[in-house]
């Protein structure tokens, strides 16, 4: 019966046993595949354009600093404008999106009202409407009201996130007990005050998750700003680097700029990933916020 007792303790500290080779091998291959392009672009960003041609793929070059300076000087430092714009679109859009989602999620979860079912379903169906169908008419409408090529043209469509609202409703339902709200009401707290002082703090871990997902979604977005914007100094990084790559087809010297630009533009997000690891919940049914 000794087998039974050891096995039933299996959840407790695992005994050190030999490594299973095949699954570990599979995992290592996966790691190599995932990291290879990132390592390659890191190395390639240290090369001059001629070194890109002549050096072996993973042999570092010696012009990282020179590439950086060239990028810095490119069109009066427009790269940093793109970086700032991206931070503004992603940061501003994600904060507003978290606020709107929190309001709506809390409203849908904590109140009963007549149009509730209809409105919530409508927003959920919105998740299924492909961005394809919307991007172009959004541009045409924005152009009609004279907002094309403004920050608002990119920012406003980024605020609404059906998925964020859906998550916020789950979070509100799971983490804000109705009893506390009733107690607050009986103590004479107004609905807004209750929301701000009780609802928001209790939902906050979930709201950080909503913020992060929306931040990444906006940071990664290309089609919307590509359609909406025409002046270079309003571009986000994705659009700016794309125009650089395009120009590179006729001026190969620009390739080293694209490479260093790509490195610099993915670093902030990678940092964000490592720093805020615990907020990355991809359990799409995640209701339980602890």
């Amino acid at each position, binding site marked *: 019966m000794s087998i039974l007792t050891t096995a039933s303790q299996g959840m407790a500290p695992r005994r050190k046993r030999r490594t299973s080779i095949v699954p570990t091998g*599979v995992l290592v291959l996966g790691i190599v595949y995932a990291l290879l392009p990132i390592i390659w672009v890191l190395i390639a960003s240290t090369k001059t354009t001629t070194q890109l041609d002549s050096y072996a793929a993973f042999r570092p070059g010696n012009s990282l600093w020179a590439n950086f300076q060239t990028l810095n000087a490119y069109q009066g430092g427009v790269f940093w404008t793109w970086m700032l714009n991206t931070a503004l679109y992603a940061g501003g859009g994600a904060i507003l999106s978290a606020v709107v989602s929190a*309001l709506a999620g809390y409203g849908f979860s904590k109140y009963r009202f007549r149009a509730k079912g209809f409105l919530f379903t409508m927003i959920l169906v919105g998740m299924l409407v492909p961005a394809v169908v*919307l991007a172009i008419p959004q541009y045409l409408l924005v152009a009609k009201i004279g907002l094309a090529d403004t920050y608002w043209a990119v920012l406003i469509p980024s605020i609404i996130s059906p998925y964020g609202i859906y998550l916020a409703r789950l979070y509100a339902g799971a983490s804000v*007990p109705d009893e506390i709200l009733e107690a607050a009401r009986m103590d004479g707290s107004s609905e807004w005050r209750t929301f701000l002082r009780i609802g928001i703090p209790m939902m906050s871990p979930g709201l950080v998750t909503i913020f992060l997902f929306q931040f990444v979604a906006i940071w990664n977005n290309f089609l919307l700003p590509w359609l909406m914007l025409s002046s270079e100094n309003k571009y986000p990084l994705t659009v700016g680097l794309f125009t650089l790559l395009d120009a590179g087809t006729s001026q190969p010297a620009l390739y080293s700029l694209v490479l260093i630009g790509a490195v610099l533009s993915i670093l902030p997000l990678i940092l964000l990933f490592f720093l805020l690891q615990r907020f990355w919940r991809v359990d799409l049914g995640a*209701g339980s916020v602890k």
Partner: protein
Amino acid sequence: MTTATSVHEPAASLTGARRVRPRRGRGFRPAPRRTPYTFVAPAVLLFVAVFLVPLGYTVYLSTQKTQVSGLGLGAGARKQVAAGFSNYGTVFGDGEFWQSVLRAVIYGCILIPIMLGLATLFALVLDAQRVRFQRFGRLAIFLPYAVPTLIGSMIWGMMYLPAFSPINSTLHALFGIQGINFFGQRIVFLSVANIGVWGGTGFNMMVLYTSLRSLPQEAYEAARLDGANERQIALRIKLPMIRPAVIMTAIFSTIATLQVFNEPYAIHQISYGGVSTTWTPLMTVYRDTYTANNIYLGAAESIVIAVMMFVLSAAVLRITNRQIFGGEAK
């Protein structure tokens, strides 16, 4: 205690669908009637402005066309007039459009099985016992999600460039294979699908891994008692239990595939024509709307794509449900 009745079962409050029923006559003051509407108003207004109005506008535009009078010069020479369903007729007869749809289908048939297969495999490996590097592996494989699709595609695109392709030089050094043209007529599908696999595996892996972690561990313990090995536990117990999550990722991937744009668009300029300007349906919409300046045709194409996508995801839902749950006594 009367309050005991007000404690909801956890399941009910998890769904968020239940609301506390106002119990009157205990000093309870119900919220003003307008309050809930002010909470949801910003979201609803934005939704109408950003989703509904553009959607309706697209439908409207798809039934219009430009009428040119005279030589088409001057201010009043081009007018927008009703076109009925003629734009749709053009779309259905447009070989180039349907070729781009076909390409997206081929692309999806390559991408989705490989991406979800890898995602499932990695998720199971991460959840298995006696595997090394699990923590690092989880982060590393999820990392491409942090790279914007467009920038990831640009990096791969440059890695495909014959002039400095690290893939070609590695293949040459290891196996003596030379000069693969990644933008060749057939291979370009694999090249573009590879970008999608690279960018999408990590996210799907995390979704599946999270649902694996939420499974009750007791089932494995019982299986281990009965002498099952890790592989059997993974394939016979874990995999069936995460089927709903696999189905969901399959549906989302299917929807994403038909609207693929960023990956091929990022590399179409540097691909020497390997990726044409109408390679995918959305690229065709983009070209017709902007380059060819026919917003009405572009609108009709958008609607056709949307309807196809709707039908496709409904079909995927049905088929996967039948295949996966068909064997269950349910």
